[in-house]
């Protein structure tokens, strides 16, 4: 919930515009995209903004190429972004996996729509959240952020870029059609009033060899872009610290574990959960993104009816805030999970709860968002 000073310079923007504006504010200077409803305005606005800021926009021939161009630009030093929706997100997955493997910082926006397949292109859903975690083949960690308000979207877009840079990896920003096309007020913070991070650079002595995956000083290998004289190599094959392929089982196993660890060990800067009336809650509501806004209304209404409901709203949904869910589950009598899909994060909630707590699912698909009334009903059922 964000309140705006009457005198503030409030922009009445669609969520997709917010993402584009915030990306440029975060230093994004490359966008490779391919239009798809309901994300297209992100691309259109980047096409408008970037050349004005000396950055490069390109509309690629498809989403696969868009993802490829983003990683290429990233390795050449760009802060790069792409934006898409369900079908395009599915297509990007192979190259996203490449991004994880070569540890290329970048931001991937998915403005979720109804699915599977072409589904309901102009209607919202929150049904790509498990895909965001598990979509590409092989083991990997995921960072995915799902803001709920435009002001938050602005700040979280910046944070997505910062996390991508700090952890040297792709970061996923999940919106949905509700937010992408919703116009509401946002007050862009002044440049300089927020942090901007760049990927860590190594402290090389003169003439010292640069190893693109050198982890002597921590799990996040420092980065020097192409064309700075280090002539380094990288590949989607498993590689050692030099970036060249290896099939040594121990090296590969260690490296894959490191890439997962670099996320799990940095949860302090990744995790973000918002709580709403949760302190004394007896009925725990779990919801995220646009649906969480309905959940906030439902929680307020429940309280008005004397039910002590409270909301846990993860902003970072991957890595999943399992410890917080566990604690919340211990605190409350029962839980309500409201998500605009047919059951995805509820599995994680159940897993994290670790015991047989009644978990009421308020799930839905079909294009019309979950209403406060539907969540309230769920709350009342388990109250």
């Amino acid at each position: 919930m964000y309140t705006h000073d009457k005198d503030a310079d409030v922009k009445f923007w669609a969520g997709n515009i917010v993402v584009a504006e915030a990306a440029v504010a975060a230093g994004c200077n490359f966008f490779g995209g391919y239009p798809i409803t309901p994300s297209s305005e992100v691309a259109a606005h980047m096409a408008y903004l970037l050349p004005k800021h000396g950055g490069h926009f390109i509309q690629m021939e498809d989403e696969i190429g868009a993802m490829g161009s983003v990683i290429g630009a990233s390795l050449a030093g760009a802060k790069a972004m792409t934006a898409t929706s369900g079908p395009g997100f599915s297509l990007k997955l192979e190259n996203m996996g490449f991004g994880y493997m070569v540890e290329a910082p970048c931001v991937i926006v998915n403005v979720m729509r109804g699915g599977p397949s072409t589904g309901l292109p102009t209607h919202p859903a929150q049904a790509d959240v498990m895909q965001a975690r598990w979509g590409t083949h092989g083991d990997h960690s995921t960072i995915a952020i799902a803001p709920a308000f435009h002001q938050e979207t602005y700040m979280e877009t910046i944070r997505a870029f910062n996390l991508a840079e700090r952890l040297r990896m792709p970061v996923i920003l999940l919106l949905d059609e509700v937010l992408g096309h919703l116009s509401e007020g946002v007050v862009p913070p002044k440049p300089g009033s927020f942090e901007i991070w760049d990927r860590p650079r190594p402290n090389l002595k003169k003439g010292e060899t640069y190893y693109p995956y050198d982890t002597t000083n921590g799990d996040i290998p420092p980065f020097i872009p192409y064309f700075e004289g280090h002539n380094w190599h990288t590949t989607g094959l498993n590689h050692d610290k030099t970036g060249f392929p290896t099939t040594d089982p121990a090296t590969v196993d260690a490296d894959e574990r490191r890439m997962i660890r670099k996320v799990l060990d940095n949860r302090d800067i990744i995790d973000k959960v918002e709580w709403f009336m949760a302190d004394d809650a007896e009925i725990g509501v779990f919801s995220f993104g646009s649906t969480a806004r309905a959940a906030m209304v439902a929680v307020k209404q429940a309280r008005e009816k004397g039910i002590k409901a409270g909301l846990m709203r993860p902003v970072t949904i991957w890595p999943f805030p399992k410890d917080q869910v566990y604690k919340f589950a211990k605190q409350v009598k029962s839980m309500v999970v409201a998500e605009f899909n047919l059951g995805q994060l509820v599995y994680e909630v159940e897993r994290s709860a670790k015991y047989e707590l009644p978990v009421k699912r308020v799930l839905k698909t079909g294009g019309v968002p979950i209403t406060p009334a539907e969540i309230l009903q769920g709350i009342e059922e388990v109250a």
Partner: protein
Amino acid sequence: MAFDYFKYLRKEKLPHMWCPGCGIGIVLKAMIRAFDDLQWEPADIAVVSGIGCTSRSPGYLNANTLHTTHGRAASFATGIKMHRPDKHVVVISGDGDASAIGGNHLIHAARRNIDLTYIVNNNNIYGMTGGQYSPTTPLGAKAATAPYGNLEPSFNLASLLIGAGATYVARAHVGNGRQMSKLFRDGFNHKGFSFIEVVSNCHTQFGRRNRMADPMNMIKWIGDRATPLKKWESMNEDDKAMNFPVGVLHHDKNQPEYTDTYDALIAKLKQSA
């Protein structure tokens, strides 16, 4: 003095992984000679590839090198070039990588006339995965997935690229490294998208199945059919079909290059701001 290849090579990675006699090594050498001709510095060159035997080339080159996903090299290269239009970006990949799974990125890079040089080592087969037919495998040839002989007509890559709008299109062959190097150099020099097909040998996967298990057999089979464009044009239809033209097949120097166009827009907006 002997020519020094090692300025552009990662010596410690040699000998390379390719089969004895594999044409990819000849291509690599010709690339290096062309880099040297132009006095390009390794630090200013990015070499990008997809997946396949050919696509292992960047690993041996002393440059900024990127071994991407199968077929997608051109898109990664496009991102690199867009962000650093001042640098040289070269793509090298196999016929399968470039023209099967990668066909779309290839034709679109050509259409945009973005200043990349795209080299295809066309050995008419999927070498790395064990000899399945590719879009350039000749009709009737045997392949792992064509046990009864290949049924699919093949691409003429040069025609495809000309049709797509490439502004420099040339064809070399493994039997003539000197010409290859010259065509590479011209392609590198060309401001805009340049495409050079190298007709090459995979005696291991193609040759073995088609009575040319020995590298020189295949290299000769290729060389015998390679005909300078002028001469080829004067041939009758039958001979044309039996042979293929080599040399510069298409060169249009008057088309605007894409990153130039883009950067002109940036400059214009800066001015009007």
